[in-house]
């Protein structure tokens, strides 16, 4: 690793820290400017309300509250939940992060595996029925919203085929902290990854078609390199460069999608917590989860950009 590379990573980490700070600040201010408060649903009034607000430090100026939040957050302490009185947020969020990461990871694998494979096949069989069906499938895949696919998944596998599946992908209501099994993950991961894999398939196809007519592919053939090696080593490796460039947006899309998927399938991850916290006005949790998301996206984008240097030697930071 070169010195320039380390400097670059350092700069990027600083930028991530800055972005996370700004995002958490804006979200914090926004959420605290909401009319009413967390206890509005609990019919607490007068002195007891003042006492509650005081207990959670909610009667202080908002900037003081933010300072309190962020100075603890950088030490890894997101404070306590207001709805579930006094429960520490950090351990919950971390546990939920691992659940979400598992689902998101599965969807990402599916996205890249399925997307690249179908894209390559479609390109190699250009203008045949294989190409046409894969292309059409991809357009449908990125037009049908993930929540529709997920709902249909629930309908088909959870209702119509209940006798066969036993509703395998439902997480028990009282989650015991174990990870989902392959069976449990399949339907949610497909629902989550279908949109992104359609996108990857489209990009891979287009970029394979472009690359396959490049001079260096002809050179490889002229050298007598085996066809399979030409396709994988010479064509695909170059075709993956544009695919890598959309990995960042893809990861964001998967994170976004996970919010709805987790809610539909009742998967106890960050996304479910995010919506729950908004609906129940548990604002400390909302801010914590969103800060987590900003951090996640920043790190993922950095990882993608570093992958770029591995896959394309012309790029140096």
């Amino acid at each position, binding site marked *: 690793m070169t010195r320039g590379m380390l400097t670059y990573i350092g700069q990027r980490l600083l930028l991530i820290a800055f972005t996370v700070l700004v995002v958490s600040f804006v979200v914090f201010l926004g959420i605290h400017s909401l009319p009413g408060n967390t206890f509005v649903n609990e019919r607490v009034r007068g002195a007891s309300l003042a006492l509650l607000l005081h207990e959670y430090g909610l009667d202080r100026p908002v900037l003081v509250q933010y300072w309190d939040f962020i100075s603890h957050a950088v030490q890894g302490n997101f404070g306590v939940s207001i709805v579930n009185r006094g429960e520490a947020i950090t351990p919950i969020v971390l546990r939920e992060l691992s659940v979400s990461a598992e689902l998101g990871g599965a969807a990402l694998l599916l996205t890249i595996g399925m997307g690249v494979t179908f894209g390559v096949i479609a390109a190699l069989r250009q203008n045949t029925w294989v190409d046409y069906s894969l292309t059409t499938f991809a357009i449908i895949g990125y037009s049908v919203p993930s929540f529709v696919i997920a709902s249909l998944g629930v309908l088909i596998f959870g209702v119509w085929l209940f006798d066969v599946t036993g509703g395998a992908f439902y997480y028990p209501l009282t989650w015991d902290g174990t990870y989902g099994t392959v069976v449990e993950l399949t339907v949610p991961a497909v629902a989550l990854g279908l949109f992104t894999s359609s996108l990857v398939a489209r990009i891979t196809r287009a970029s394979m078609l472009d690359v396959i*007519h*490049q*001079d*260096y592919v*002809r*050179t*490889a*053939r*002229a*050298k*007598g*390199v*085996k*066809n399979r*090696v030409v396709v994988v*080593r*010479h064509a695909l*490796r*170059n075709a993956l*460069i544009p695919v890598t460039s959309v990995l960042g947006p893809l990861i964001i899309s998967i994170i976004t999608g996970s919010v709805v998927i987790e809610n539909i399938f009742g998967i106890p991850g960050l996304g479910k917590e995010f919506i729950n916290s908004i609906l129940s006005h548990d604002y400390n949790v909302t801010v914590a989860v969103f800060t987590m998301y900003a951090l996640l996206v920043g790190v993922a984008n950095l990882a993608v950009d570093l992958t770029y240097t591995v*896959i*394309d*030697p*012309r790029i140096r930071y």
Partner: protein
Amino acid sequence: MTQPVLEVRDLSTHFFTDDGEVKAVRGVSFEVMPGETVGIVGESGCGKSVTAMSLLGLVQRPGKVVHGEIMFKGQDLLKLNKEELRNIRGRDIAMIFQDPLSSLNPVLRIGFQIDEAMRSHDKIPKDDISQRGIDLLKQVRVPDAVHRIKDFPHQFSGGMRQRAMIAMGLSNKPDLLIADEPTTALDVTVQAQILELLRDLNEQTGAAIILITHNLGIVAGLCRRVLVMYAGEIVEEGPVEQIFESPQHPYTWSLLRSVPRIDSNRQDRLLSIEGLPPDLIDLPVGCKFNPRCPFRIERCFNEPPVIENVADAQRAACWVTMTRAYDEMNAATITDTSPGAASGVHPRGRRPAADLTPAATAETLSD
């Protein structure tokens, strides 16, 4: 008498496009002796590159070799299956291309790409491959080869990339090297270096070279024999000095007249060839050069000329030939090279200007 290393008989390659059948190469025949250097010259689109690609079975859809024989060391390359042909490519017949930047894979190291050529075949023992890669790079005069072999193509200059391509081509000690416009993308000074390198390598390794170019000067610098192609056919062939001295086909004559020469006397004015090459879908009847030829006669519009001996070791496909044009049409002094200008022959119902328009324009093709 030695056997030719390559013998091409009546080769035709067509492209089956939506607009029609593009007859890019038609009935091309020639041979290459071991260690010989042969140039193929012609304007862009005359079929010289397609001929080269056909030799190695590299013509991609919608193109297809429709007819002919390519005899290489006693076997017909067109009758081989994919795997057998792959084993000839890069091993016995190597090819280098015009643009050395786009022809090298940008994401693989130079050394890897050279080694890959050897690893794809079993000619070079596995243990020798990495050392031979460095030796080859030294042989094509890349400075600091030991270190540069780990570079990526973008770290090489244009000339060095072409050297690396040549090293790759030579790695399996081929019998024949096909160089398709190897110097076109390079600076003039680098061009000269690459040509000198090719000449030296031809002497050192004994590999025959087919040099494809639109530049007659490059042919003169490297080749012993030259084939002139026009509209998918060979119109003239012979030893380089002889062709340069007394071209017999009007096309060759015009080509030579359009190149500035230091040794020419003042009266030889630079003349350009008027008009465009014919549309390869809808070819003219008779001689394919007749729409542009200043020396055409009636026969040129009716019968396609057959290539035949016009002098010792020199053949041309022309009903007139330049000897007759000099004798009867004052070819030495003409200044007007428009179609039929020297012979005064214009076909019925056609104005001279109509000859200059290509038969099919983009407009008529798109419908």
